[in-house]
């Protein structure tokens, strides 16, 4: 019997665990370790953040779903990995600390034959002074609870606007090294939509602040699409939407401090600036969750398995990290998501260490990096989870000696639907696809296949976004025919 331990129950971890449990059956064991008692369809948090959905519509309890799916569920956080065992045991294990199941604070050694690290991000609000909803001055939509809080604050603001006050709204990213600009983009236009519905749009100035070199970069170096007889940069379409919706923008910005009513930020030209606000939602930078690793003798080997940001090394070409942008190659990206040192360990989704950025690295004259970091969320992370599950299925059941399935971001596409307002007939969203995610300028003139890369805004995009909400919650709950819903 083999035991596969999956650390993390987000999109990638949940995908890997549920498929593996189905394929391996009861002869083998799949264990999920996640500190959360509920699963969250994060893309719909945007709608929770403007009151378009309740928290209950975007989360569900994990315990009954994992029971149904034959997954051993441990509500706990992973603390350390011991890939060589310890002086007491030859068997490799992870140490976990329970956060629920009536064992809060209890530690346990959990042995494994195969380990999938899908721990997702640490929301690093601490990277910028004054950032975040807990100890800071901004709201967030990164978790369902954050989104509920954001909506409460937005409602308070709208009430003040209805009494005639003019308010300044600032939405964007709260650090020069943030990723996930898409969430900030969506929240910007959903707030705009909500203010229009409430009849107070004329009482608000909305400003978007981003670390992108140009709008539409999204951490993937932007994209080109064919439209109206031209091959046009996504920057043009992004700026068009901001103009149409009367949203100002501040680009190439590193927010370095947030006070109660203002942000301080540095621009790529080195200038120091500030912007005042009455309401602000800023996405934090992501970090690894801080897992430690130890060898058999108990020596700390964290730096051999994780990069300084806390992301796990896999089969990528990390030698390219220090070379100029022009020398980067699509092949630098990992194929199997497999740790090079310990072949029975895999990392998927945000947990794996990218070989370098996707967007071009930029620094201000003061040496401050101001560039988006690579997104590894959504569709690509689910694909990685499934590919690793397929490989482990073949290794365990068919005695394959190497991983059998790849999930290389330079050979996979991504579909993204960015909401610009919710409503069956009044909503809209930008529906985008790009192929591949990592631009390949050797193969494609514009870095990507123009036949697989497109974008358009409209009501249909909103319907697609809502369809994805229904379909992926259905799939994650393992309801009938869940396996035929593609990721």
């Amino acid at each position, binding site marked *: 019997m083999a035991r596969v331990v999956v650390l993390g129950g987000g999109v990638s971890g949940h995908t890997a665990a549920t498929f593996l449990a189905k394929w391996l059956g009861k002869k083998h064991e799949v264990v999920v370790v996640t500190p959360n008692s509920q699963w969250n369809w994060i893309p719909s948090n945007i709608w929770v953040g403007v009151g378009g959905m309740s928290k209950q519509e975007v989360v569900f309890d994990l315990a009954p779903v994992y029971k149904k799916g034959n997954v051993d569920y441990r509500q706990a956080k992973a603390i350390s990995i011991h890939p060589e065992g310890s002086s007491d045991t030859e068997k490799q294990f992870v140490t976990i600390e329970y956060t629920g199941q009536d064992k809060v604070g209890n530690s346990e050694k959990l042995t494994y034959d195969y380990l999938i690290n899908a721990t997702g991000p640490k929301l690093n609000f601490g990277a910028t002074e004054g950032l975040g909803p807990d100890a800071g001055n901004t709201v967030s939509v990164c978790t369902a609870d954050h989104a509920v809080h954001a909506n409460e604050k937005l409602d308070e603001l709208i009430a003040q606007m209805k009494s005639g006050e003019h308010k300044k709204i600032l939405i964007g990213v709260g650090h020069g090294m943030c990723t996930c600009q898409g969430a900030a983009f969506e929240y910007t236009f959903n707030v705009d939509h909500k203010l229009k519905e409430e009849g107070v749009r004329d009482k608000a100035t909305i400003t978007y602040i981003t670390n992108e070199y140009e709008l539409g970069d999204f951490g993937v170096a932007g994209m080109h699409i064919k439209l109206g007889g031209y091959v046009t940069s996504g920057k*043009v379409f992004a700026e068009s939407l*901001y103009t*149409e919706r009367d949203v*100002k923008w501040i680009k190439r910005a590193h927010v370095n401090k947030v006070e109660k009513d203002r942000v301080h930020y540095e621009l790529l030209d080195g200038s120091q600036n500030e912007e005042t606000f009455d309401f602000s939602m800023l996405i934090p930078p992501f970090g690894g969750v801080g897992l430690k690793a130890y060898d058999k003798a108990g020596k700390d080997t964290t730096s051999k398995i994780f990069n300084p940001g806390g992301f796990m090394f896999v089969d990528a070409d990390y030698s390219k990290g220090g070379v100029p942008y022009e020398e980067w190659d699509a092949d630098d990206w990992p194929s199997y998501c497999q740790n090079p040192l310990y072949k029975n360990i895999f990392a998927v989704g945000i947990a794996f260490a990218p070989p370098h950025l996707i967007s071009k690295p930029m620094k201000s004259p003061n040496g401050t990096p101001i560039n988006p970091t690579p997104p590894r969320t959504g569709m690509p992370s689910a*694909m990685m989870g499934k590919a690793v599950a397929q490989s482990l299925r073949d290794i365990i059941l068919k005695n394959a000696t190497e991983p059998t399935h790849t999930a290389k971001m330079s050979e996979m*596409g991504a*579909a993204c639907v960015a909401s610009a307002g919710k409503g069956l007939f*009044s909503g809209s969203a930008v529906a985008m696809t790009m192929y591949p995610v990592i631009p390949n300028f050797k193969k494609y003139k514009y870095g990507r296949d123009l036949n697989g890369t497109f974008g358009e805004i409209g009501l*249909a995009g909103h319907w697609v976004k809502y369809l994805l909400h229904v379909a992926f919650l259905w799939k994650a709950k393992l309801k009938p025919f869940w396996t035929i819903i*593609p990721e």
Partner: protein
Amino acid sequence: MKIKPYSQNSFTPVPSAFTKFRRNCVIWQFFRFIAINIKMTVLILKSHH
């Protein structure tokens, strides 16, 4: 919304009234919904290895 010459938004394209109509026209958007789903399905099929 007013476009002020030489301001941030004065050099960007903006959709025409017809483009805005098409974005919200239920009949047209129904066909776009089908088209988007086909495009995304093709992308997914190309991406699994």
